[in-house]
């Protein structure tokens, strides 16, 4: 390292991350860094380990070795709910909302207050909660569905609801796993609009296959292949990388 060179403050610093499932290394010595307010898209062929990377960051999968630093805190040692409380939010690939609860109740559960057992016993549905839920519901186009059970929503609406549940957590790092997969064209446009609005003032890590969508939102793209980084940089750079064209974009 050069004398006088100060390492930049990264929001998320992943270094030497490895996870092995019975000898198979789904993620192999992976390092990458995400800055404040950066929108990073991870692309790559199926089985490249994209979802596994998100699983590792949010604590769903435990790393075999390596480190994940978020604002200087080591995430690999924490439990999932503690990671959420440091400010990492995760959206799953298939919409995971609570179908037996209403849209209001879904959003309310994500409201970051009363997260302990006794906190939730004494939780009051007061004005700030109602206002925030209303605000978010409006953003995710579900304002008039607050009392609808989530089971009655369409696939796209469920995706929005889950995004809304993350939004209400107000995370510093938002991780989205294929947010527009399985959506109709009009839903897709609305989602892009929604994402563009919610990614302000936070860092976002997105997995996506829709290249047009990626071009629209990405600041920087990381291409994964067999658990390792194949290429990284701006969309322009990545698109013209011969290795990327060969394993991914060429198909």
């Amino acid at each position: 390292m050069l004398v006088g060179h100060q390492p930049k403050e990264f929001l998320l610093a992943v270094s030497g991350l490895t996870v092995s499932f019975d000898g198979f290394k789904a993620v192999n010595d992976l390092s990458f860094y995400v800055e404040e307010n950066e929108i990073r898209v991870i692309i790559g062929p199926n089985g490249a380990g994209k979802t596994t990377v998100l699983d590792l960051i949010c604590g769903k999968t435990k790393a075999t070795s390596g480190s994940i630093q978020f604002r200087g805190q080591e995430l690999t040692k924490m439990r999932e709910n503690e990671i959420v409380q440091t400010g990492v939010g995760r959206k799953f690939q298939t919409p995971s909302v609570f179908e037996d609860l209403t849209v209001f109740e879904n959003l309310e559960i994500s409201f970051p207050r009363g997260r302990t057992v006794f906190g939730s016993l004494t939780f009051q549905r007061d004005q700030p909660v109602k206002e925030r839920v209303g605000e978010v519901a409006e953003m995710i186009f579900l304002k008039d569905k607050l009392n609808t059970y989530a089971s009655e929503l369409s696939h796209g609406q469920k995706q929005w609801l889950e995004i809304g549940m993350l939004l209400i957590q107000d995370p510093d790092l938002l991780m989205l796993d294929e947010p527009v997969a399985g959506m109709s064209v009009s839903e897709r446009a609305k989602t892009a609009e929604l994402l563009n609005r919610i990614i302000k003032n936070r860092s976002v890590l997105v997995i996506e296959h829709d290249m047009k969508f990626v071009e629209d939102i990405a600041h920087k793209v990381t291409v994964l292949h067999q658990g390792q980084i194949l290429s990284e940089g701006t969309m322009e750079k990545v698109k013209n990388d011969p290795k990327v064209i060969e394993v991914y974009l060429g198909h």
Partner: protein
Amino acid sequence: MINARFFNRSELIGFLALAVLLFVILPLSLDIFRLNLVAKYLTYAFVGIGLVICWGYGGILSLGQGVFFGLGGYCMAMYLKLEASSVENTKIQSTPGIPDFMDWNQLTALPFFWKPFHSFPLTLVAILLVPGIFALIIGAAMFKRRVGGVYFAIITQAIAAILTILIIGQQGYTGGVNGITDLRTLHGWDIRTDHAKFILYFVEVVLLFACVIAAQFIRLTKLGRILVAMREQEDRVRFSGYSVANFKIFAFCAAAIFAAIGGAMFTLEVGFMSPSFVGIVPSIEMVIYTAVGGRMSIFGAVWGSLLVNFAKTSLSESFPQLWLFGLGALFIAVVLAFPNGLSGIWADYVQPRVDRLFGSRKSGWNDNSVADGAPAE
């Protein structure tokens, strides 16, 4: 406390109907023998209410609620037994002042864990704390390691079996297979008279309604909604910043404490406690009562306990061999055809007609219980 916000309209009707039945109709129409039987049935309703919270809402199927029912019952029985074993009453024993079965088993002093049960307040505390702490230990050991579903159910079965074997094996300390019998007075008050049974029935019903209200309170807080959320999408709850294990432990402990209150009342109503109410079979029967009543409905659990036990008594009086087959068939029928039990049938078929009759709209509570078609885990 009971207002339109706490109970919606159909729940309020359910509450009042149950209150009228238990406080007025049954005491006026039944003789003391039958009323005491009802009191015995109702002790299982406490277990059922706990199962509604733990299994219906939280999705945690425990096949070992007999353990907590038994612990509550044994705590009460130990107090009553010590009171019945005064030096005066036991002067023919080689060691007067200790329970008779200890004397038969050559014990010469009261074991240390029996000593707190000389005190009535300590006994009341123990009835709640012993099962509560035991559930806390089991829950923490299982749920922190993410043991759930069928595996958890099997482990609770094993615990029920182990506790039964332990009680039977440690005859000198527990009364063995006969249990703790010949109980006479509660704080000097003879519990064997008809008058006492009548009073105890009302004490029990009051406690039952207290538990109904406590369970309804849990159901209506955010914790109640988190339990439902957890049953469906455990990961989403985790990634919303909640410790799923802690919520499961809470639900399991709450169910254990409800069961223990039922067990303690059982000892008072029936006058003894034995390992036959602790093991695998009674534990499964308790789940059946809840399933028949409707595992999503607090009132359903009470009705289920009453009706199945009533059927059990009348059928086993007339066809002793057939009863167990009947119980099995009932359970299969409920699981296959009516996953929400009697309360589901009520909500699906009866309530809409009643509503049409009175021209009112369907309430949210019905939507909720109908929407739940999740298979029993």
